[in-house]
């Protein structure tokens, strides 16, 4: 995570985020670790994404892990913030990857990622291409479509029915993978706000010590999730 010069540092809120009173009911509430709420997601200023891109990312995350039904959605858990910070960091610029040419982006997919573009560049080029497809096919920008049409559009993207340049063919799989990563990664990366995704599935996070629990078969583990910074759900 890098602080971008000239912008207010976000490190402060990301590192020490807040705990939820709602999920602390399993524990003695006085033990929960609270540092106050973050400003609403709508007020977040993206580090990497432009305003147009951000509207798409917010709307797409909201369909990939929607608020409806059991469990928190991607917006409630601030998944778009996670994706934005990943794009600004070493994942976004593929800094660990072998990026030398020649490139054969239309190669047999079994041979793996072959685009000359980094993930951040792929988001940058694929979002407008997909938006154009949404305009032509569904008559509006993705974020303005109704939920059912958004789901249809994302399904077309996933199935490869949206004609994207071969350099961009991994766009949907990055988007989906990054969305799930943001939902389930430690909150220090900006998503999984208040450990809500962990609390929802019953993953205790960074507890990492279960000696006397191994042989308690088929029983419910009692402690709520814990983050690396010590925040508890």
């Amino acid at each position, binding site marked *: 995570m890098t602080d971008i010069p000239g912008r207010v540092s976000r490190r402060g809120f990301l590192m020490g985020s807040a705990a939820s009173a709602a999920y602390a009911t399993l524990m003695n509430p006085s033990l929960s670790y609270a540092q106050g709420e973050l400003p609403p997601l709508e007020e977040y200023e993206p580090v990497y994404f432009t305003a147009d891109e951000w509207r798409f990312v917010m709307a797409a995350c909201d369909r990939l892990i929607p608020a409806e039904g059991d469990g928190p959605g991607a917006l409630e858990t601030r998944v778009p913030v996670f994706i934005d910070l990943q794009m600004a960091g070493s994942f976004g610029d593929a800094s660990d990857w072998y990026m030398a040419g020649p490139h054969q982006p239309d190669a047999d997919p079994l041979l793996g990622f072959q685009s000359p573009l980094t993930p951040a560049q792929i988001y940058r080029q694929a979002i407008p291409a997909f938006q154009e497809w949404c305009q032509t096919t569904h008559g509006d920008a993705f974020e303005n479509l109704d939920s059912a049409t958004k789901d249809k559009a994302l399904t077309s993207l996933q199935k490869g029915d949206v004609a994207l340049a071969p350099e961009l063919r991994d766009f949907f799989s990055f988007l989906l993978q990054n969305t799930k990563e943001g939902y389930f990664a*430690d909150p220090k990366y900006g998503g999984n706000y208040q450990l809500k995704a962990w609390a929802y599935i019953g993953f205790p996070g960074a507890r*990492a010590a279960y000696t006397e629990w191994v042989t308690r078969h088929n029983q419910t583990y009692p402690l709520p999730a814990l983050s690396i910074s010590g925040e508890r759900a």
Partner: protein
Amino acid sequence: MATRTDPKKDVVILGLGWTGSILGMELAQEGLEILALERGEDRNTVPDFQYPGVIDELKYGIRYGFMQKPTKMTLTVRHNTEQTALPYRHLGSFLPGDGVGGAGIHWNGHTWRTQDVELRLKSYVEETFGADIIPEGMQIQDWGVTQEELEPYYDRLEYMMGISGKAGNINGEIQEGGNPFEAPRARDYPNPPLDNTYDAELFADAARKFGYHPFPRPAANASRAYTNEYGMQLGPCNYCGFCERFGCLNYSKASPQTCILDALKQKPNFSYKTHAEVLKIEKAADGKTATGVTYFDEKTGDEVFQPADLVLVCTYSLNNVHLLLLSGIGQPYDPATGEGVVGRNYSYQMTGGTALFFKDKNFNPFIGTGSVGMSIDDFSISQIDFAEEGFIGGSYITGGHTGGRPIQQLSTPPGTPSWGQGWKEAAGQWYACKMSIGSHGSNMSYRDCYLDLDPTYTDRHGRPLMRMTFNWKDNDIKMTQFMKGKIEEVAKSMNPDKMASGFKHDGSQYDVRPYQSTHNVGGAIMGTDPKTSVINRYLQSWDCHNVFVMGASAYPQNTQYNPTGPLGALAYWAADAIRKDYLKNPRPLM
């Protein structure tokens, strides 16, 4: 060209992972001046594996924080000799290590001995079933050592690592509760088995009803406090669930750090350098010995020539083969003629599994260790009639799990959409209710599965990357389909609400994207004939007698087990040959 030459050492060790650490310790006891060169960074339990920083799934489990960075070193892959190989641009199918400890810090710890027949597979098949059952193009060989010869070295390895397990055969006597199909061993494991998780127990109960023989999978996760022969101490594992892909926070997983390095670092005749990437093994003018190595000193940008009398190649199987090819040690293998040896017989691991979902069971998936589980060897290589089944090979089968890290390890039942409300609700409903039964199987070697230098792609120093030519073959697909049948039978008897299998099937091609295993073997294989092997039975280069090549690159074909048991035993075996024989009279040992 080297910009600096350093003072000569008796021994230079290339890579400080499992095999480099074992060799370092054994030869340090001879009083030799030893230098280990490690390309990656230094790593210690504190601060690198310390709680809570290491309990970070994204950083280590998903972004591969401890592993080889393709930007610095990778290879290219293709399915056959007609195809153009393309770079393995980010990690997926296998995860080589990087830094002190190598992949030995972030392995699971399944620590097996091979079966006797696996070490003499070609002879066994010919004697038992006839040479004509070996399919066209399959190129299996004998290793040149026997299980009986290796037994004392396995014993040393297991006692060094503090393995938790239960013997199945002590000096020919079958032990209740152990693996009855294992080769005879001199004594039991140093530590008792780990406690079983719920899924392991359920699998074992079901397997017993079929007449199978479940036993605890041998684990390099300590079940109690233990001190090894070097005075290194392990504490009992706490089932943290962040084991494979992570360094152990608890001094419980056997690794070079927990079992060897702190003791080795105290020896005045041993030293090591990090950020020192060996580029080439240099040969003497007559080509019969090596004079030392040239390495890239990342801190200064220098290319350094390090002279040494003995060169030990311990850089992990794939890197070992790459270095030999770049150094011109041994003739490169040519699949068209079958001549040459370096790169010959690359093979991998054939794995598959069945997931079982139970509405009313809670497996607490986050409670796990790298190796806990109950296995059966009833369908192992020695137990299968190859002629009748129509394939050569076998698998061990395990019920158990290593952790419940949600990005990597959460799975949903078949038919669940991959996103949307359906995915989210299934994730919540089934996270704790899933278990799996896995098959870990052999992979034979073939004439057209091999390693050579890539004609197009280069590394950051401008040297050719290595090229892997590999695909799945019918023989191994038949084997895994056989295991699927056996596993599904047991799985169904357990009455899960839902079930899903993932096994290679007819037409499956090698896919570099999903993780399969870091069990890349072959390419610098051992044997007793220099025409078909790179190293002799003491892991000594046929070409340069002061070069020894460790690791799974020595395997003529893959066994059905994880590789570190045999490669660790072979490291002790080679160390013994060097100590007892080679040092007195340096020469080809065969």
